């Protein structure tokens, strides 16, 4: 899921200078699970801003709202009247949600209330860690199901590097060495032969290095059939 972290309230308040009617909109999907932009976090931010408004006489009129998935236009359109009725929107969704509001209602200012941090998983209550870099070319079938691209500080394709010691990464001793974990996993699966194979360099063109990515599934597109070839020629 997408993991986020709320921006400091003081930073959000700076964006709102001169505004009166403010809509805070959260998302019930990823950022709700990462406890950064769900219903509770929207309420917390609204309370903090109301407190600032009362203290400083800012006269902010704050409305709260949470949509099912802010990255989908259909869900955002359901709160169209709220968005159009506000001077600006503070999005507590990830960058995708905030941009969806901005793209649908370009005349309205949509501000990011949180920083989109990474693609990760909840490890325990209150702890999330990164496990995917969305590189566009998954290779974890060769690495025992552990992603070296996101979990190795050097994103090494052929590891481990010389800096790993006692199963820990030299860049951060609190982090497990991804290649140590890969070795242990492959050993458990009797697939250690995989670790001796030299892997070809990764195709980074499929990652963000190749520019903005887009996927088009023709079978899902709703468009009229091109009938020009079917016309009876006289």
């Amino acid at each position, binding site marked *: 899921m997408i993991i986020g972290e709320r921006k*400091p*309230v*003081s930073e959000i*308040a700076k964006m709102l200078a001169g505004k009166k009617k403010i809509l805070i909109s959260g998302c019930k999907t990823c950022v709700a699970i990462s406890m950064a932009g769900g219903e*509770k976090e929207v*309420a*917390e931010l*609204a*309370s*903090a801003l*109301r*407190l*600032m*408004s*009362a*203290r*400083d*006489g*800012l*006269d*902010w*009129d*704050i409305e709260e709202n949470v949509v099912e998935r802010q990255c989908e236009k259909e869900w955002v359109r359901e709160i169209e009247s709220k968005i159009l009725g506000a001077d600006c929107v503070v999005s507590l969704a990830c960058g995708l949600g905030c941009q969806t509001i901005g793209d649908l209602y370009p005349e309205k200012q949509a501000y990011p209330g949180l920083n989109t941090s990474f693609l990760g998983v909840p490890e325990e209550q*209150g702890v999330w860690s990164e496990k995917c870099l969305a590189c566009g070319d998954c290779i974890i079938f060769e690495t025992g199901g552990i992603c070296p691209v996101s979990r190795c500080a050097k994103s090494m394709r052929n590891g481990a590097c010389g800096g790993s010691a006692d199963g820990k990464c030299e860049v951060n001793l609190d982090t497990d060495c991804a290649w140590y974990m890969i070795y242990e996993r492959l050993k458990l699966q009797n697939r250690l032969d995989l670790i001796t194979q030299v892997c070809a360099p990764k195709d980074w063109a499929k990652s963000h290095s190749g520019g903005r990515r887009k996927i088009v599934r023709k079978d899902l597109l709703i468009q009229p059939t091109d009938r020009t070839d079917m016309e009876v020629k006289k």
Partner: protein
Amino acid sequence: MSKINIVAFVCENHALSALKAASIAGDSLPESVKIVKIPCTGRLETTQMLDSIATGADGVVVIGCLEDNCFHDVGSMLARGRVDRIKDLLKDIKMEPERVEMINAASVSGAMLMLKIRQFEGKLAALPSLPFKGAIK
């Protein structure tokens, strides 16, 4: 000393028993304290602490069980995390983090609890009063 308003969120288990024990011993709560009973401090949301201050409280105290003897196991620990979060948030918006405090109490420690509440009241009295200039919307 100007009149201080304190909202005390009190768990219905060990913390409330401690208050009752103090009361039986003749030690009554300061007039500044308004009690809000809750089933467990772990149920308290950060919003409730912020809203209390926004609507006129000078400070908020959360009174729960001892962490290693919490009636609901982890309620006090969760509450402490949320109190710390609100302290950080208050610092961020340039307000005094001392306005929010957590006190843990065993059922038998009524006198200690009263002492800590009075100390909290004293700390709040030393802070500048909140300069509210507008209404909550």
